[in-house]
C-alpha cells in the first residue's frame, strides 16, 4: 500500500555522489545488492587471478579438438582448434572487462560533458551539439565497425572507440535534458548572484545533481556494451581471433551451437551475469546516494 512516508521522501536528492553520507552501510541493503556486488567481485577475481591457477596456454592448439568437458587436463573441454576452453574463458575476461569499463567510462565522460555544455549554454550551441549527437546516433554502427577493421585494424582499442561512438550520444541527451531542468532552478541563479563563473556553477552546482541519473545510465550502458561486444564481433570488429574476449568467443562458437553448445553458452552466461550484476549494483548505488525510493 502506498504509505505517507514514501510519499514524503524528498523529490530531488539533496546530496550528489560527492557527499560523505554515502556510507557503506547504506550501500549493501537487501540480498540482491549482496548478490550483485558479490558477482562483480567474483568475476573480477576470476579474470585477474584465475589465469595464474590455470596452467594451460589459452592459445596452444591441438590437432585433437572439441574434447568434451571433464577430460583430463581440460575441465571445460577444448574448442574447435583444440585449445583449452577454461584457459580461454579466463583469458577472455580481461579484454572484455577492459572494453566494457573503458567504453562506458569514455562514453559517460564525453557524453556528459557535451550534454552539460549543451544544456548550460543553450542557444545554437545546444542545437549544434544535440544534432551532432543525432548524426552519431543515426550513423549506422555496421559502417563504423567495418571502417574500423578495414582502415585501423581490429582489436580492443578500436572496439572501445566504436562502442563509445555509439553510446556517448545517449549520455549527451540525458545530461543535456537534466541540465536544462537544473539551469532554471533557483539555486543556479542564486550562485550566479554570488558571482560564480559558469564553469564553477557547471561543475560544483549542476554536475552533482545530474550525476545521480548519470550513474544509473552508466550501469545500464555497462550492460549494453557487454552485449555490444558480441554484436560487433558478429559484424567483424573483434579481430583478435587468437586472443579473443568473451564477445568474440560467443560469436565464434555460434556455428557449433548444436554439437558443442558450451563454446558459445559459457561466455554468453558470463556476459549476462556481469551485465545483470552491474545493473543491480548500479541500482543499489543510486539508492545509497538517496536519490532513489526506499
Amino acid at each position, binding site marked *: *500500500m502506498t*504509505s*505517507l*512516508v*514514501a510519499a514524503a521522501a524528498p*523529490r530531488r536528492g539533496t546530496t550528489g555522489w560527492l557527499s560523505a553520507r554515502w556510507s557503506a552501510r547504506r550501500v549493501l541493503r537487501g540480498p540482491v545488492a549482496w548478490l550483485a556486488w558479490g558477482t562483480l567481485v567474483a568475476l573480477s577475481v576470476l579474470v585477474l587471478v584465475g589465469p595464474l591457477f590455470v596452467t594451460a596456454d589459452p592459445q596452444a592448439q591441438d590437432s585433437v579438438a572439441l574434447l568434451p568437458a571433464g577430460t583430463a587436463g581440460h575441465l571445460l573441454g577444448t574448442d574447435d582448434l583444440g585449445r583449452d576452453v577454461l584457459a580461454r574463458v579466463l583469458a577472455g575476461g580481461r579484454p572484455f572487462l577492459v572494453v566494457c569499463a573503458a567504453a562506458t567510462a569514455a562514453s559517460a565522460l564525453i557524453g556528459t560533458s557535451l550534454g552539460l555544455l549543451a544544456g548550460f549554454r543553450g542557444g545554437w550551441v545546444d542545437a549544434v551539439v544535440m544534432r551532432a549527437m543525432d548524426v552519431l546516433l543515426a550513423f549506422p554502427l555496421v559502417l563504423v565497425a567495418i571502417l574500423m577493421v578495414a582502415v585501423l585494424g581490429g582489436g580492443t582499442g578500436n572496439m572501445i572507440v566504436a562502442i563509445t561512438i555509439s553510446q556517448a550520444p545517449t549520455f549527451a541527451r540525458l545530461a543535456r535534458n537534466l541540465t536544462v531542468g537544473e539551469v532554471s532552478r533557483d539555486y543556479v541563479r542564486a550562485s550566479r548572484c554570488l558571482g560564480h563563473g559558469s564553469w564553477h556553477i557547471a561543475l560544483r552546482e549542476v554536475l552533482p545533481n545530474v550525476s545521480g541519473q548519470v550513474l544509473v545510465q552508466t550501469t545500464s550502458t555497462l550492460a549494453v556494451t557487454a552485449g555490444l561486444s558480441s554484436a560487433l564481433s558478429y559484424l567483424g570488429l573483434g579481430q583478435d581471433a587468437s586472443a579473443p574476449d568473451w564477445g568474440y568467443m560467443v560469436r565464434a562458437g555460434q556455428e557449433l551451437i548444436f554439437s558443442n553448445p558450451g563454446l558459445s553458452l559459457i561466455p554468453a552466461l558470463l556476459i549476462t551475469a556481469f551485465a545483470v550484476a552491474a545493473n543491480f549494483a548500479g541500482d543499489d548505488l543510486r539508492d545509497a546516494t538517496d536519490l532513489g525510493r526506499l
Partner: protein
Amino acid sequence: MAGPRPSVVEVRDLHVDFATDRGPVHAVRGIDLDLAVGQVHALVGESGSGKSVTGLTIMGLTRGPRTTVRGAIRYGGRDLVQADESWMRSLRGRELAMVFQDPMTSLNPMHPVGRQIAETLQVNAGRSRRVARADAVELLDRVGIREPAKAAARYPHEFSGGMRQRVVIAIALACEPAVLVADEPTTALDVTVQAQVLDLMVGLARASDTAVLLVTHDLGVVARYAEQVSVMRSGQILERGPAQAVLGDPQHDYTRALLAAIPRLHGPRRRRLSPVATPG
C-alpha cells in the same frame, strides 16, 4: 463567539506510530480533540510536534504497512480509525477536506486548474462534466481569482503561490465538507497574501458551517482566527481551551515560553528572545 457548539469530530486517546529503518517513531502519543460546527480549532506547536500527522490521520491518509493508528476518531456516528478504506474514500472530498502547506506542488502540473476542481465535483457530487466545469468557474470566482473563465483553462505553473492556494481551497470546499483540515495553509506564502488567503478560507468555511482544524505554528494566526486552541508538543496536547483564554492567560509554562519567543514591536530593541527549552 465562544460557547458550546455540537462537536462534529471527537478525537479520543489517538496514537500514531511510524516504523522506520531507524526504529519506531511515536508521532502522536494519546491526544483528545473536538471540532465544533462552524468553529476554527487551532492546533499549534513547533514543527515535529505531530500536529500535521494528527490532521492527516483524521483524513485517513496515514494508513499503510509501516504505520499503526490506535484510539478513536468519531465522526458521523462511526469511528474513522476502524473504518475501511472504501468508506474513508467516500468521505474524502465530500465530507472531509484538506488543504496542504506547499501550494507549489499541490496541483497536478499536467491538467488545467478548472478540470482539477471539476473532478472533485464529478466524483463526490455526481455532477456531469459540463455542469462541474461551470461550477468550477463559479468556485474560482468565489475564491477571488479574476477572469475565472479564462483562468480555468490555464495550467498550475501559470499561477502565483497565492493563486494556487486559492485553487486548492476551491477544491477542498467545493462540496461544502463538514470538516476541513488546513495544514499550515499559508506558511509558504508571503505575509501580504497570507492574510487574504486565511480570511477567504475561514470566511468560506464559516459560511458553510464547516468545522476547521487549523494546524499552524504561527500564534498570530491563532489569535486572529481561532475560537479554540490546543497547544501540542512531541505528540501530546499540553493545554486546551478558548483562544483568548489560552493566549491571554497561559497556564502551562511551555505555552508561556512559546508566547515569550515572539519579538515585540515596542519594547527594548536589543533583547535576546528566550529560546524554548525542548525536552530531550
